[in-house]
């Protein structure tokens, strides 16, 4: 027993040169805020603490859930490319990729766990009484599998006796596959809402998968820049460039998809779909959309990638940062925009309050606290790992 633990000693080290402490402290503070949020939820109940309503039942926490888990599957995708499809440039990042994917998936699970009224019921009811026509069941199933695969992958990539590449390849492949299935299913969780045509069709499943991959790449580019204080060693140039290109392709696809989504929504004019798109273009979500989704998530990264010709690693880091912020708005808007058109007009007596024909939603302090929990968990766990674990394949060589 102790002997086998001994083996792992080579995995542990205190990395003084990595600027992890500020993030660990930040993570701890956020975790603490999150903890307060959790206590409040248990004390006062979901309804009192969260700002979600009857008309907008899904709010910030579903957005942050999506933000985290989709990024995770994006990371798994990139990891899978390395392991399974022999895109070897990313191989040298595989520990960080798997670790990030795993931790960020956990962070996502905190969000859904706090969002669900009865997370524990879910655990047994998914087994006792699953409704296979419900996309949530599939999404839940695939994300759970994804977590298991990532856990095994973690074990494999951190195996001190060296990574078994065959196993890693198989795992990587499945992580990639299950990730895509899970995320596209998440898209269908929305697509299956009869009430909300905005979500219907193939657009969201695709957009989510592609933006997730971009997110994975962006996060890696950002993390590497942080670890190396915006001075990423040449050793990673090819990997970083690979990430940049991958992200570039994804951004291209996203722009393509988004343009057609908007055009088709406006053109075919299914009532609530048009209203939802309008909330983005000129409605209550327009600042999110233009600044967050368009400027930060699309234009700025594209510009940085083009200007730096995917070579300047600092620029890649900046592109990653811009994208990760922008992507937050993208997720939020996606969740909220589709729900703002009311199912019943806000007429007297209808029990629906609308402003300019739309219902209102803004996240409550409690919801932000739960987001802090997820973000804090991610920062804390990840940067603790950075501080104490050997994450660079380079040093092993």
């Amino acid at each position: 027993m102790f002997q086998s633990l001994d083996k792992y000693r080579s995995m542990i080290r205190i990395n003084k040169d990595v600027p992890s402490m500020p993030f660990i402290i930040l993570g701890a503070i956020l975790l603490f805020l999150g903890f307060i949020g959790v206590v409040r939820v248990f004390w006062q109940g979901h309804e009192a603490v969260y700002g979600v309503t009857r008309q907008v039942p899904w709010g910030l926490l579903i957005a942050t859930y999506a933000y985290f888990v989709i990024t995770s599957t994006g990371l798994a995708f990139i990891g899978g490319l390395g392991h399974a499809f022999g895109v070897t440039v990313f191989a040298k990042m595989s520990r960080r990729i798997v670790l990030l994917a795993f931790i960020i998936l956990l962070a996502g699970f905190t969000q859904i766990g706090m969002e669900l009224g009865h997370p524990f019921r879910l655990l047994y009811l998914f087994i006792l009484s699953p409704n296979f026509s419900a996309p949530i069941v599939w999404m839940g199933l695939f994300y759970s599998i994804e977590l298991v695969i990532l856990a095994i992958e973690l074990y494999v990539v951190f195996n001190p006796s060296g990574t078994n590449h065959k196993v890693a390849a198989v795992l990587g492949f499945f992580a990639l596959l299950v990730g895509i299935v899970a995320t596209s299913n998440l898209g269908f969780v929305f697509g299956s809402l009869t009430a909300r045509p905005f979500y219907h069709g193939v657009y969201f499943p695709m957009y989510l998968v592609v933006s997730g991959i971009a997110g994975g790449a962006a996060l890696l580019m950002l993390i590497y820049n942080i670890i190396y204080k915006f001075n990423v060693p040449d050793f990673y140039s090819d990997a970083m460039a690979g990430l940049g290109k991958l992200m570039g392709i994804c951004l291209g696809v996203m722009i393509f998809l988004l343009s057609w989504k908007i055009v088709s929504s406006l053109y075919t004019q299914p009532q609530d779909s048009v209203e939802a798109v309008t909330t983005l273009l000129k409605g209550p979500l327009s600042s999110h959309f233009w600044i967050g989704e368009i400027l930060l998530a699309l234009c700025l990264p594209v510009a940085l990638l083009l200007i730096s010709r995917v070579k300047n690693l600092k620029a890649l880091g900046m592109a990653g940062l811009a994208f990760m912020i922008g992507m937050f708005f993208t997720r939020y808007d996606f969740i909220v925009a589709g729900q703002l058109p009311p199912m019943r007009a806000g007429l007297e007596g209808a029990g629906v309050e609308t402003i300019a024909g739309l219902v209102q939603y803004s996240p409550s302090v409690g919801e932000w606290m739960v987001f802090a929990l997820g973000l804090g968990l991610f920062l804390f766990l990840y940067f603790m790992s950075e501080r104490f674990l050997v994450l660079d394949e380079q040093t092993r060589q």
Partner: protein
Amino acid sequence: MIGNKMTRRKFLGISAASAAGVAFAPALTRVVRASEKTNDYSILPKGKREFIASNCDMCVNKCGIICEVVEGKLHKINPNPKNIKSRGMLCAKGNAGAALPYSPDRLKTPLLRTGKRGEGKWKEISWDEAFKLVAKNLADLKEKYQNRSCVAFASTEGFQEEFYYYLVNSFGSMNTVRHTTLCLSSNIQGWSSVFGVFPDADLQHAEYVIMLGSDRAQALITPDSVDFQRFKPKGQKLIVLDPRFTETAAKADRWYPVKPRTDQAFVLALINVIISENLYDHAFVETYTYGFEELKNLVVEYTPEWAQAKCEIPADEIRQIAREFAYHAPRSVIYPGRRSAFYPNEVYIRQTFAILAAICGCWDTIGAVVPKSSVKLNMHNVIFPFFMLSQPRVDKQAVGLVKDVVPDSVACPMVGTGLPVDSCAFLSEKDGSWGSFREAVLQDNPYPVRGFFCFKQNPVQSVPNVQKTLTMFEKMEFICVIEQQMSDTAWYADLVLPHSTYLESWDPVHNLGGIEPIVEFRQPVIKPLFDTKTMFEIAGGIIHEMVKIPSLWDDIEPADFEAFKKDILEGVLDKPIVEYIQHQVLEYPGAFEELLKEGFYTPDGGKARYGSTRNPDFRFKTKTGKIELFNERYKEFGLFPLPKYCEPSALPGPDQYRFLVGRTAWNTHTSTQNNPYLWEIQKENTIWINTAEAKKLGISQGDEVRVKSKVSEQTIKAYVTEKIRPDCVFYVNGWGRQSPWMSQIYKRGASESEILEDVLDTISGSMCMHETFVTITKI
């Protein structure tokens, strides 16, 4: 409806309303009740479940209810489908009654004022102390003023009101004021001037209905509110005249936003057409009526063209309506309605309605207006002593007084129609006239009134011109209010006595008959929750203390005093009230059991009674014994005997709007707004302003505006709508409350009675609530 969503907010589990809601939710034992093929639909607690019949008391209608009581806790009030008056309905208020006993804002024990009046400092005292205190104050006032009428007693109808009168008559004051002069006394007066009685409308069978100034969809009156939609015969036509597009107007075949105060011109023109085109019921007129020739002469000038200029309804449509009305007669109804405290010439307006019914023979037959039926009840023959020190009513004696209340603008033209301005001509002795009563008290004319009792009435908010009422209160040395909640009136009292709710008490039998005769009563459906009493018990308690004070009985014969104690105390108030009830229905075997089972009783299956007066020998309760188109008694009094058209004496000036009064279906007067289940429907009142006018005034939806009348001003949010005439504004009564114990609604919205001027109709003594002109400014 009226802008309730302006104040919507997400409801967090901590506010008072939800406290009430939660308090009411059953002990959260989640008992799954097996039913059909599924699991839990309801979480009714397990235990003894009873269904107890009684009657609603959330408004005047007294709809039949069946209360579902689980383990002694009232879960739900259901309508009684068998009740022939309420026809199986229960409105929002009736349903919300289930929260009434459990309201945290209820009065739970007698309260004695300790601070200044209206300061809100109270001391809880025992009923014993309270009874002693009341008796002592009555004795002191009597001693001091040597006049029993120096204490006034206000009340509104209710099944316990007769016991209030036990108290009144045991003290011997002549000054009682009831709600009727705020409500329907001019209507009763107008119809009675023609038919001797105030009839009901047979909406179930009428083919043609003209409804003027009544809002049956929101101002609920059973059975009419049910009948006019649920049981309306196929093809029935409904014509609605109302300056507002009410829910009733929305149901009309034709709606006319009549110019306020000119309905009479419209109906006179109908009469003109019907007579000039010879469409009236000759046989009926000949057999039953008196004064047709005089009427004929009067209406010659009232042509549709003449009327169009007054009421703004096109002449040809008036002609058409007249012909249709006559064509469908006798199954034509000109709807009597209820509240008529509208205008100074209201009695004539209503007289005109009645005359239209009379000349078309739309009387006491299927589909017409029909006199009410009643069930003869066994009376308790109690004789109250004759007190030497009782002086006649203040408002009856105070000659010349009304002149001061009737503004010049109103008074002058009234003289033209023969209305006296020196007194109220036809006071019903018991009802009094709120307006002239208050005026007399304010002027100490002819004698001082220094004590005030109030039962089931909230005059501070239901009598126009709140300031005057409060000034009147300042004159009082003792104010005692018997209430369920800390109403604005109770708030200014010295002693507040908590009354039990209708769900906790036995109430005597009362006639509620319309076309179908029916009597109702009440039995307790739950045990009293607090230290409250009914008027029966309160009267008994006070009178027992009174008999202990010799000075209270020194102006009657000693023998009378002994008889009094025997009759009133031993004979009635000391006995269980159930005996009183049983005595009332003694003549009908099985009736008491029927009451216990169903909450109501009808002697002959409650069949509609038509035609009791359709007998040439029948004597109507008029001077001539005929249906009087020409009123002999009015002539005697120097009033105009015919419904001569009276020009509106005052019109809104430039920038002024006529203020209208009305109802919402989910509140009763000033009683129910604090009930959380009704409060959530409407959280404050808003003022209706016509879209075009609002634009002129720069007011948009939800803006705060200042409403200013001659007597006061209020601020309120605007409800900008097409549903009202441009020259009128409206908001509903019951808001802008002064009592902080009405926790849900304290200071929310605006008080109506604050801004209403106190204008009087001198024939009926009625308030004229649509004679206030206001200016509106955006804040």
